């Protein structure tokens, strides 16, 4: 995975490998407190899986990390710099921290190819040839290069999600955030997306993955974070979480979903 190292990191020597650090993050919608004092760190090359019941705030957490929501308290640090701090290069941050959505969110007016080219041209200012080359490389990686001229309405859900992953990869991100990338898919197509994600993990891409796929979390995660009611209840290695969780609520949740 390409990891351009120039530009926005100003490593304060905190944790050398920390790419994203969430420090005391909270979020409220009106009077509704959805996230409370969230802390975790994603280090270079790690896959952090976030699990938990519906409504526990997992999506909101990812959206705060990507600033699709504005946190109401705490900080998100990227290589030691506060992403809401004055002078932080937000556009560059967005380019380097990609997001894959549950509903794919492909640009419906563009072909598969243009979906992967648009951001490179507009944000990274790459020329057309280079953008198309990069796009083709990642489309081939997710097995969608043959569909470059198709429109999103013409391909299946699993194919859309693979294109969405290629679109995110085409920006040469350092981190990818996944919000339940397989929850909107037919059971038969879940596997094709998960195998692309396993492949990315094995290549060393840093990933934060909200998922209900416990098998994926168990096999691929470096660490698993269990959330409930806006709090991180437990965080540990997958072997611990899935075989010997310390917290009773983690145990209850896993008993229900496994």
């Amino acid at each position, binding site marked *: 995975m390409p990891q351009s190292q120039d530009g926005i990191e100003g490593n304060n020597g905190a944790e050398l490998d920390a790419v994203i650090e969430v420090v005391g993050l909270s979020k409220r919608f009106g009077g509704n407190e959805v996230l409370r004092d969230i802390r975790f760190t994603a280090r270079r090359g790690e896959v952090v899986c976030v699990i938990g019941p519906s409504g526990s705030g997992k999506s909101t957490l990812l959206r705060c990390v990507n600033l699709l929501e*504005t946190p109401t308290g705490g900080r998100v640090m990227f290589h030691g710099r506060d992403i809401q701090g004055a002078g932080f290069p937000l*556009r560059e941050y967005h380019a380097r921290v990609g997001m894959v959505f549950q*509903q794919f969110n492909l640009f419906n007016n563009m072909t598969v190819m243009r979906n992967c080219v648009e951001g490179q041209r507009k944000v990274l200012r790459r020329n057309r040839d280079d953008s198309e080359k990069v796009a083709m490389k990642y489309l081939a990686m997710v097995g969608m290069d043959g569909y470059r001229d198709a429109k999103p*309405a013409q391909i299946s859900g699993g194919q859309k999600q693979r294109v969405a992953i290629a679109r995110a990869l085409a920006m040469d991100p350092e981190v990818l955030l996944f919000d339940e990338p397989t929850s909107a898919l037919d059971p038969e197509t879940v596997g094709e997306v998960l195998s692309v994600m396993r492949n990315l993990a094995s290549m060393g891409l840093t990933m934060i993955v909200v998922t209900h796929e416990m098998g994926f979390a168990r096999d691929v995660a470096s660490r698993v974070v269990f959330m409930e009611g806006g709090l991180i209840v437990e965080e540990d290695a997958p072997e611990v979480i899935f075989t010997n969780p310390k917290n009773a609520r983690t145990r209850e949740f896993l008993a229900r979903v496994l």
Partner: protein
Amino acid sequence: MSAIPASFFGWVAFLLQKYGSLFLRGAWITLLVAISGTICGFVIGLLVAVARSLTVPARAGFLPRAGIRALRGALAVYVEVFRGTPMIVQAMVIYYGAAQYLGLNMNELAAAVLIVSINTGAYMAEIVRGGVMSVDTGQSEAARSIGMSHWQTMASVVLPQAIRNILPSVGNEFVVNIKDSSVLNVIAVSELFFMSKSAAGTYLRYFEVFFITGIIYLILTFTVTRLLRLLERKMDGPKHFTVFGSQSDSRAEITYVKEER
């Protein structure tokens, strides 16, 4: 031109022969006013809708915030006033107001295009706003998540889809403008209705003249509707796409057919 015709068809043929060029000129002016008015109105509508989509940045200072708020207020007033009054009244107020208070004797055709444009703009602003809302916010969020700015997102993701979605309504406005530009005869624009009135006056054959006029309006609106349908189809792009042989999928080129909606 000898005998006075006796039958309905005789009159129609007679009037067509005598006033054919008058009808044609009237139809041309009507079409000109409707086309320019609809296009200008569409541009106004786009600008108004995009301006109204501006959010007040949280960190902005007092002046930009007050500016954006004042702009929004002014645009809301514009939309309300021009949607809430008849175009015939707007024509009178603007045309005679300009003459009496600004000493401005507007060219009738220019006045007509101006009036239809700002009237249509008020409707289009609402139509475009609906079109923007019809594009799901997920796509804007995806654009934002790869670093695209508000303007880039609008220009390459939201507006192209919004415009495609509102094309039927835009066509509707166009048809309405072809018909409603007839009220501009009150400021003596030589459009189709105005020309017909003068043609009817000479022989007092109102029925026959306006029968012809009706047919001409129908031909105009029908043609325009068909052309717009064609444009819509063109904007939707090809129904087929080709799957190229891929490194991971060695099937040769296959053509898929998109299912009909």
